[in-house]
């Protein structure tokens, strides 16, 4: 109620600066707040062209697969994923550049929550797709599995990956970076420690996609992206960086373009 009242007050104060966001089909008590904080008050429309896919059953709240797909919407400049009722709502932001506004990954949830993908087009409008994820609690407050192991610090940053030719003509990249992705909310009091950015470039140096990640992305982030790989490129370079400044570099070669691989120097 207080939230509603404050939203109302905010609207009064801000006057005509914002159009009120459309009412949320999922009836989330956090919706207005999410528009304000995550979408920074931009114009918002609900749009079926932006799809969020989550499983119908969640057994592991620390590893919930999510696919955000705005490929049906032309001209997407940013794709933001957030979950209203998570203790940390903003999950990630993909700046796709020329790659597809598409990302598959896994996230932690603390309880059942709406999961949303907001795709911003060049005119600044946010196109939002939503789905309600039914889940038990605990994903954000459980310590990382790696925290049970002595060896996590020796495996941190290890990266595995492969790229495939997608029927769309893009290169489909799937990669997994070992990292505990501590939320800072775990019962063992481990402070937040997570990969905050992943930059994907072509081996020739052309930027392909940038990913900003937050605490809710699951341990050992495993990501699917659709990237434009110029005919002259035979590989992609990935650079992850965590909030302690750890840098994790890797390169995935396109098996169908082995002869074009540019080996980075230094």
């Amino acid at each position, binding site marked *: 109620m207080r939230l509603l009242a404050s939203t109302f007050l905010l609207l009064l104060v801000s006057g005509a600066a914002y159009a009120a966001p459309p009412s949320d089909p999922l009836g989330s008590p956090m919706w207005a707040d999410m528009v304000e904080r995550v979408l920074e008050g931009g114009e918002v429309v609900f749009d079926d062209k932006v799809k969020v896919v989550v499983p119908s059953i969640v057994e592991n709240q620390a590893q919930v*697969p999510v696919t955000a797909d705005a490929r049906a919407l032309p001209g997407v400049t940013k794709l933001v994923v957030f979950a209203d009722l998570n203790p940390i709502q903003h999950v990630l932001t993909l700046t796709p550049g020329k790659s597809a506004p598409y990302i598959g990954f896994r996230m932690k949830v603390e309880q059942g929550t709406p999961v949303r993908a907001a795709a911003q087009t060049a005119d600044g409008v946010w196109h939002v797709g939503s789905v309600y994820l039914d889940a038990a609690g605990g994903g954000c407050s459980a310590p990382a599995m790696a925290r049970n192991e002595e060896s996590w610090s020796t495996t941190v940053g290890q990266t595995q990956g492969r790229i495939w030719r997608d029927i769309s003509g893009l290169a489909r990249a799937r990669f997994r970076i070992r990292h505990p992705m501590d939320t800072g909310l775990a019962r063992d009091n481990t402070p937040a420690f997570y990969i905050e950015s992943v930059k994907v470039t072509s081996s020739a140096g052309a930027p392909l996609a940038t990913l900003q990640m937050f605490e809710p992305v699951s341990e050992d982030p495993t990501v699917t992206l659709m990237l434009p790989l110029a005919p002259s490129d035979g590989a992609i370079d990935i650079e992850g960086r965590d909030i302690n400044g750890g840098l994790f570099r890797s390169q995935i070669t396109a098996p169908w373009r082995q002869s074009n691989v540019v080996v980075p120097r230094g």
Partner: protein
Amino acid sequence: MLSSPVAKRDRTTGLSRRQAMTALSATLASCWLPAFDARALPLSYSLKPEKLTDGVWMIPGAQEAITQSNGGAIANITILDTKAGAVIVDTGPSLRFGSALSALATELTGKPVARVYITHFHPDHVFGNQAFEAGTIATTPAVVKGLEALGEAFADSMYRSAGDWMRGTELKLPGKIIEGGVEDFGDRRIRCLPMRGHTDSDLVLFDEKSGILIAGDLVFLDRAPTTPHADFERWRISLANLGGIPCSRIVPGHGPSEDTDRGIRQTRDWLEAVYAMISDAFEKGLDVSEAVALELPSWTNKIALARYEYERTVMHLYPKLEAGKLPRVDAQSR
């Protein structure tokens, strides 16, 4: 539609969700609330034993997922009459179920319970344990270990999916360890066959008198197999071994008992089919959501919960495939 935020374990009181629920219902009960009284009719399981042969009964589980309408009574339970007393295989999902089961076994056999076997550590098979003496409940060392590690988490998840049917249920560990061999109950000898595959430890029981093979969850029939702790290769080997045991009838963990090996074959075919589909999806670079959306072969249409269990299996297998099969590409590995 949206539930209020509830921490899994309250940080200030240290209460689990379950304990908090109990405390809350106690608080509510202390007020006079007629609406709650009307809804508080005690839930009760109606156990319908099917006689398989003289002195052997099976209580069929619902061919469903665990819900608030079935109270988690989804697994098959077997009762055998022996000179030494009733022998029970698996105890069901809750204290309430276990109590009803204990009463039924005594009613059918006219004797107290001499032995309870636990086939594996999954919650729909073990949470009736409280109704029995710990010393009569026998299982393998690995089942006890599994329950010690995951029993509390299973209890939380059972309370969430089965609701009030679980009232009063707590984890009770089996008190008798068996590693195999034969137990003699006077007029009935039961052979204990430790296997694995559905979980880390699956105890199969063979009644030498009737020739009935009680396969636990290594065998499913007309209900899709569950895989949260499965080792597909071990499971395949165990199924091959089960197929080599001459028996009069097979009691699967879920689904009807039959005097054929249809359950063994169907379980084998299902595991083979879904494993092939999922690893093929992985090899093609599909994302989890895309793999989940794939169409199942038409022969699985008649299998209960096929889509539901397939989706679960994708989520169980995908992380393992990614960790095990994606090649290393980081600078350290070059």
